[in-house]
Each structure stands twice: as C-alpha cells, then as structure tokens.
C-alpha cells in the first residue's frame, strides 16, 4: 500500500492558546484535518508567540500536538528595526520603493535561518509544502527553497504590501495557491495575473455547535438588544468606526442598544457609549457562541478580511451580520448567503441596524439563510474535500 502523503505547513507562528490570529488558526485547523485523514503532517514554525516583538518564547525542538509534528525554530536576532520601520512606513504611505529596499524590509522582518536550513535539507521529503500568510518574510524566503512543491495560502488583502515587486515574484514562483474565498482569488489574479487552473478556493471548516442566548443574557443581566463584535480590537479591524457609529446611532435614534465585545486589544470608546459596552475579553468558545446567538446583529466593520471566521460563526449561531461594503470578501459572503447587509457609510448603517431591530422576522430569516450557507459551504467535510482535491492535483 502506498504511504500516505507527507505535508509540511510553514508559518511564523503556531496557533496555541489565545494569542494567535486567524491565519495561524486556519493553518493549524487544516493540518489537523489532514492528520485525521491519516496524512503525515509537519508544522514548521518559529519559537515566537508575539508578532510585534518576535521574541523566542518557546523552546526550539519538536513536539507532537494533536497528531501534528510541530518543529519550532528560533527567530534570527539582530533585526535592524529602524531600517524595517523606515521602509514599512514608506510602503504604508504608498511611496514607491526599489526592490533592494523591499529586500531590506524582508531581511529585517521575522526570519529563521535554522528553519530555512531544515527546509533546504529535508524539504524534498514533503509531497507539498503549504505556506502562509503572505506578508511575512519567513514565508517569502521559505517559498524560494522548494517552489516546485510549495503552495501559498496567502490570506491576501487589497493593501499596499500586496503590490510589492518581491511579493509578486513570490506568487509567481510557487506551484499553486490556496485561497479562502473567491474574491481573494480574483484579487490575486488581478494583481499578479495568476493561472486560475493552479489555484483552489478551500477556506476553513466551521465546527457545528449549539448556543444558548438566554443563558448568556441571564448571566450578564442583558435585557436590551445588543450588537456584537468578536476579535482583535484595533483600527485595522475598524473598531473605532464601530464605536462611533453605535454611539451616534444611540444618540440619533434614541434606541437603547448595547455593544458586546469579545477578544483583545485596547480601544477608546466615546464617553457616552462606554457604560453601554459589555467587554468580556477572552471568553470560552461556548460563551462566544451564546453571545453571538443572542445578538441583534454581528457587526464587522473591517475592510481587510480574506476570510472572516467570526461572521461564519455568527451565522452558525443564527445571527445576521452587518459588514463594511469596502471589503471584498465579507459582502461576497453576505450576497451568497443572504445572511447579511453591507454599509458604505453611517446613514446606511443606521437604516440597516434599525431594520434588523424593528423586524425580528427579517433578522431570523437572515440568520437562517446564513446558517444554511455555512452548513453547505463550510462544513468540515466539504472543506476537506476541497483541500484534498487541491493537494492531490
């Protein structure tokens, strides 16, 4: 009998505990599913937990987690942060920079010579090497070692970094791409002229769950309707926009609506809104699902999402979503599912939220539509089929 395929995942961090973002969670979940199918899976990553400091906090070496052989390699020291931030700030301001300057940026980003050395000597043992997200130097340099067996799982956004020459070269050099949603693939094709036949849309499966909204409301003494947001709280995620919109919504409409937040990150709410925010910080998955199920809507004001696990979870909890229209992926999910609305500005947000508050039957119908969409498109069985098809090409 032929031995099962041997797959490596490469990512700057391995998702363990609450501090790791969506892309890392996605990679780990996909790795776990392959293990469950009897595939051999290695996860090559660094010893870092913090994506700002990149300090080596984990012991280098190998351990087996949920059947995945996780190999931690130390992050290189001696980063020139001045040079890194100098180039990064110019990229962020869309100032044209040379390829050499891009390389300065990559060299002073997160790197691990130990990981590269391992890939150089052992990389040929893997049938496929899946790497992501695209933005980190570790992925950029690692992808050059065995490009013929590398699949990029980029988690691509329409942002200044995606237009760099070196990033374009990386996309064009690897053997294929795994995208989270169709708009992400369309963006990559538009930016880099990729061959669509070498790309696959896989995404991430969402585990089925049951939720109890009453239990959540009772535990927190919530009687008024509320909007929920789960995830990192930061300007890139649109948190300040959500706080302002909700504050003005309360002021203009006179409706007593609360805001429930789960996740991490500092934020500075308008004074009048502060008493109406229930900030739960990190919560258990069950608590998060209960909170989602009881909400009038899940609001995701980010314009930079390549997938958005939380809106899919919200739909699975039976709650409709309100998303920013400027992103590509979330409005796409809303259109496809009939489970959400998308706003461009405050007046549209006000009309949409008022509609959901005033018509519970609409809220229910949209929640049901979203739930059906997630069950059809993002059940693990469906995602596994897409993933294995892509890997066995």
């Amino acid at each position, binding site marked *: 009998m032929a031995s099962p395929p041997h797959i490596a995942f490469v990512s700057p961090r391995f998702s363990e505990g609450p501090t790791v973002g969506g892309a890392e969670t996605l990679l780990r979940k996909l790795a776990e599913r392959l293990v469950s199918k009897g595939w051999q899976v290695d996860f090559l990553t660094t010893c870092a937990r913090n994506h700002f400091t990149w300090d080596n906090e984990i012991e280098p070496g190998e351990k087996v987690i949920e059947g995945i052989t996780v190999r931690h390699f130390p992050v290189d020291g001696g980063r020139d942060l001045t040079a890194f931030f100098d180039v990064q700030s110019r990229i962020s301001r869309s100032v044209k920079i040379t390829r050499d300057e891009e390389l300065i940026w990559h060299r002073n980003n997160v790197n691990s010579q130990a990981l590269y050395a391992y890939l150089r000597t052992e990389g040929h043992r893997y049938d496929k090497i899946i790497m992501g997200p695209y933005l980190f130097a570790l992925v950029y340099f690692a992808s050059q070692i065995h490009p013929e067996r590398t699949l990029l799982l980029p988690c691509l956004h329409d942002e200044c970094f995606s237009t760099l020459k070196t990033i374009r070269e990386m996309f064009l050099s690897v053997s294929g791409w795994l995208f989270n949603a169709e708009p992400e693939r369309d963006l990559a094709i538009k930016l880099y002229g990729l061959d669509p036949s070498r790309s696959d849309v896989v995404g991430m499966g969402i585990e089925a769950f049951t939720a109890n909204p009453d239990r959540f409301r009772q535990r927190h003494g919530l009687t008024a309707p509320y909007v929920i947001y789960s995830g990192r709280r930061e300007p890139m995620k649109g948190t300040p*926009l959500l706080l302002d919109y909700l504050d003005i919504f309360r002021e203009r409409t006179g409706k007593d609506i609360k805001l429930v937040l789960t996740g991490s990150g500092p934020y500075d709410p308008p004074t009048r809104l502060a008493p109406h925010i229930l900030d739960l910080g990190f919560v258990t998955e069950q608590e998060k699902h209960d909170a989602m199920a009881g909400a009038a809507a899940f609001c995701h004001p980010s314009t930079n999402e390549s997938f958005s696990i939380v809106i899919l979870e919200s739909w699975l909890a039976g709650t409709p979503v309100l998303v920013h229209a400027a992103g590509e992926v979330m409005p796409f999910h809303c259109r496809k599912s009939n489970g959400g609305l998308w706003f461009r500005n405050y*007046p549209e947000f006000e009309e949409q939220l008022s509609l959901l508050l005033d018509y519970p039957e609409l809220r229910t119908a*949209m929640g049901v539509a979203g739930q059906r969409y997630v069950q059809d498109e993002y059940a693990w069985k469906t995602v596994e089929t897409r993933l294995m098809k892509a890997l066995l090409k």
Partner: protein
Amino acid sequence: MSTGPFEIGATGVDVERINADIRETVAAKMKAGAYVGAQLARAERFNLMNLKKDENFFDFYMESLREAVYVDINDFEIRERRAMFAPLLVRLKKTIWSLLKFYTYRLWSQQNQVNGLLLSATEEVDRKYRDQIKSLEARLAKLESKLPPG
C-alpha cells in the same frame, strides 16, 4: 410573505434587494436633510479612506463638515432644571460662565480659525484635483477624436 419594507419568500430573503432599497431610502433622506450636521461628520471620521471611492457621498460629507466646522462660542440661555434655589443657581452659573468666557473666548476663536483654514485647504485640494481630472478628461477626449476610426 410580506413583512414590511421587504419580502420573505419561500427561498428566504433577498439581501441584494434590501440593500438597494436601503440605498434609495438613504439617498432620499439625505436630500431631505435628515443626515446633515456635525454628528455625521463625526461618524465618518474613521471612514474617510473608504469614502474617497464614493464621490457623491464625499460631497455630502464635505457639506456636513462645513456645518460642523465652527464651534459655537456665542452666549446661550442659562437654565436650571431644579426648582429649588433656581434663581440663585442660574445667577451662579451666569457668573461662572462670564468668568470662563473671558478665558475661553480667545481659545475657541483660534480653534475656529484653524478649523476654517483646514476646511478651506481641503476644499481647495478637492477643487484642484477635480479641475485637473476634468482638463485631463477633456484632453483625452480631444486626442481620441483625432485617432483614425477602428
């Protein structure tokens, strides 16, 4: 089944249609002046990057900004909600205001000057770019008209 300003049919709802209806409603309400004012300018302060792609809304935002730009530094009617000692409290508040006014008037008027200058600069930049785009479009049309057919 009709349930209000939307339809829930056998296949559920049509969010594309709901969104289109909402946009129509918003456009009508904007025309009627339902959203003009400082509140809207404040609401969109973190949304400007996204609004730049939406020319009509940007015009509307500028209008709201014009309404919001100047801080009202004039005198206002001083009242007291509590009935007991109301005349005394009003007199006390008036005294405090007259003292504060002396200190804050200069500060607020300078702030108004800065706000006004920033608004003028923004309008000027906006006008300049619009003129530039218009003249480039005219030039392009002229050059295209000189091209041989086909």
